[in-house]
């Protein structure tokens, strides 16, 4: 699948490169209060160029407010913000041309066809009449809507509407893309395709800022911000967030059920093992908490080889699903750890 390339960038490689190096988001102590304790507070994060930044958190935690602050739709009350090197409150036309925005709700026109909707958005960004057709066709191909180009907006399914919106977001070949819950309300297969699109865009040099309620999707991001009640709890890579949630990494060790207590006792005494837990669902399964799984695994094998009475059937690094990571991080936040 080819990512649409606007002519100016396809033909001006040097300019493109400089755009990429300048491309970043930086938030410093940003605050927007709607009254009482509603709003976002003390936002501090950076988004490097050419990365997918995922903002996850429960509904109403402030994800959309953050996107609106970054796109200049909301004015912040405190702090400093730079998007593409500019303050969003004073975006120039040129900066706006480099931004693609996919709002949370379908805002395209039900009485216009897929092609007309896309054409309208392309005109908003000032794309020329003659050169535009090619990029429109490419954007539709990209979201697999070419066959539906003559269908009215009102005749599209929810998933097709979201794909059309994505095409509209990309039609002018933006360098920075804001997508507010792009996968909300669509089936898992389409969600997977959306993330394929996002990765392709990232690989094509774009920076993406994506909010989602599906915390599992955080695993597809290069950087993840975890929000709760208007505050950013963590900003890190998915891998590091896992570590933070479980104070390190986990290893699954399978032994015969009869040997599980003996094995646990041996491993608990090892300095590189922080904790050992027995699985209630699977007899014989132990979950070891270690600082680094790749360092700990050879040590575990060495230790167990000194105890031939224990027969280790399996030992692997365990990667917990991001849902568990998120729940753990939320629990920590409630416990006051963050």
């Amino acid at each position, binding site marked *: 699948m080819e990512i649409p390339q606007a002519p100016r960038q396809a033909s001006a490689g040097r300019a493109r490169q400089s755009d990429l190096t300048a491309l970043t988001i930086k938030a410093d102590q940003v605050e927007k209060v709607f009254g009482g304790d509603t709003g976002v507070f003390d936002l501090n994060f950076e988004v490097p160029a050419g990365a997918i930044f995922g903002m996850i958190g429960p509904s109403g935690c402030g994800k959309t407010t953050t996107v*609106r602050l970054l*796109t*200049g*739709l*909301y*004015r912040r009350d405190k702090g400093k913000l730079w998007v593409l090197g500019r303050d969003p409150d004073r975006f120039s*036309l*040129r900066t*706006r*041309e480099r*931004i693609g*925005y996919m*709002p949370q*709700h379908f*805002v*395209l*026109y039900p*009485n*216009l066809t897929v092609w*007309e909707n896309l*054409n*309208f*958005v392309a*005109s*908003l*960004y*000032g*794309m*020329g*009449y003659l050169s535009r057709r090619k990029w429109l066709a490419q954007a539709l191909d990209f979201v697999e809507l070419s066959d539906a180009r003559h269908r*009215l907006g009102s005749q599209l399914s929810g998933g097709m509407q979201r794909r059309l919106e994505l095409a509209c977001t990309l039609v002018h070949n933006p360098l920075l893309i*804001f997508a507010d819950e792009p996968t909300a309300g669509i089936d898992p297969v389409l969600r997977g395709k959306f993330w394929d699109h996002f990765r392709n865009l990232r690989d094509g040099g774009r920076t993406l800022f994506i909010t989602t309620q599906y915390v599992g999707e955080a695993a597809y991001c290069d950087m993840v911000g975890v929000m709760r009640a208007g505050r950013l709890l963590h900003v890190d890579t998915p891998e590091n967030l896992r570590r933070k949630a479980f104070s390190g990494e986990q290893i699954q060790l399978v032994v015969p059920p009869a040997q599980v207590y003996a094995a646990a006792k041996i491993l608990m005494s090892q300095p590189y093992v922080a904790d050992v837990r027995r699985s209630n669902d699977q007899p014989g399964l132990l979950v070891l908490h270690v600082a680094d799984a790749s360092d700990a695994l050879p040590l575990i094998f060495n230790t167990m080889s000194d105890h031939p009475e224990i027969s280790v059937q399996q030992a692997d690094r365990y990667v917990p699903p991001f849902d568990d990571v998120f729940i753990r991080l939320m629990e920590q936040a409630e416990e006051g750890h963050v």
Partner: protein
Amino acid sequence: MFKPIIRLLSFFSKEVNEIRRQPKLVLSLLLGPFLILLLFGVGYQGERPRLRTVLVLPPQGLGLVNLDDLKRAIDANFELLKTTADANEAAAMLQSGEAEVVETLPADIEQVLASGKQATVTFTYNEINPLNEQWIQYLAYAQVNEINRAVQTKAVQQLQGEVQRAGVQTTYPPEVLVSPVRFEYSNVRGKALDFMTYYAPGVLALIIQHIAVTLGALSLVRERLLGAIELFRVAPVSINQLLLGKYLGFTLFIGIILAALVALLVFTPLAVPFAGDVTTFVAFSLLFTLASLGIGFVISAWASSDSQAVQMSMLVLLMSIFFSGFFLPLENFASPVREIGYALPLTHAISGYQALMLRGHSPSQFAWEVMGIIVVAAFLVVSMLARWRFRQLA
């Protein structure tokens, strides 16, 4: 360099595409007004009301007044239901609504006159319509004049007979002595227009204003409810580009509707004349459309929901019917209210279209100037209001 124009035209083509996707709307906008005008032309009689009347005669007879002459005079203005000597029966008919006017003639007019007093003809009615009351009073006045003339003519005839018998020659006929002055009138056009033709330019203007105000009123508020404003604010597009694009799209659409309606009026059996200059008509219509759209956009920027926008458009329509001179002359209103009428584009469009279509004259300088002021003022207000609405998200 061309980007601002492309952005402006994006709204233009979007509006055009959206409208053409609604053929029922286009058809109803075209055929609806035409059918309304046709029904008006076919159905409107334009005559004074025929009031159902009971004539109460004195039992002693009328003396000087001839009953047949009187009935003819009454019949010219009233619909004579019954002639009776029973005043109570007539009062009951008036009470029940069977009759609208009871005309009671006095007994022995001759004797009353001989005693040097005026005889009184009484008109009793049970009316709530002020216009009908004015008609009854006017017709009563005209009828009493007729009776007076008949009585005077008969008296003069009798007097002349007596004088002639005494040997004095009289040269003047009694009608000349009774009514020495008469009137004649002539319309330099030959004949006034029929009601349908006279009202056609006004109806056309009313319809065009209503379409423009409604389209404009729904336009911005729908963008806001759809959430598109959020998209526009992030995109490199200005509020003025949005407004101008919409002005352009709707003006084109309304221009097509107007051209089709004028063609239907002029080239069908309705045969409304078009005596004026087409270029002047186009220029004046353009100004009128922009002014009406401006009012619609102001409503749209102000309203919080589409039902509120529709309601406000209907208020503008009502206000236009009352204060534009469409039915009631603007001169009949006291000063502060009259100025409200002058602030409506329809007021100037009616006079302008009538001048252009029916008389072949250009609209007055005042109409051009006020229309221009409304266009500019509405644009400034809507631009300011829309900016405020855009910022409300923040």
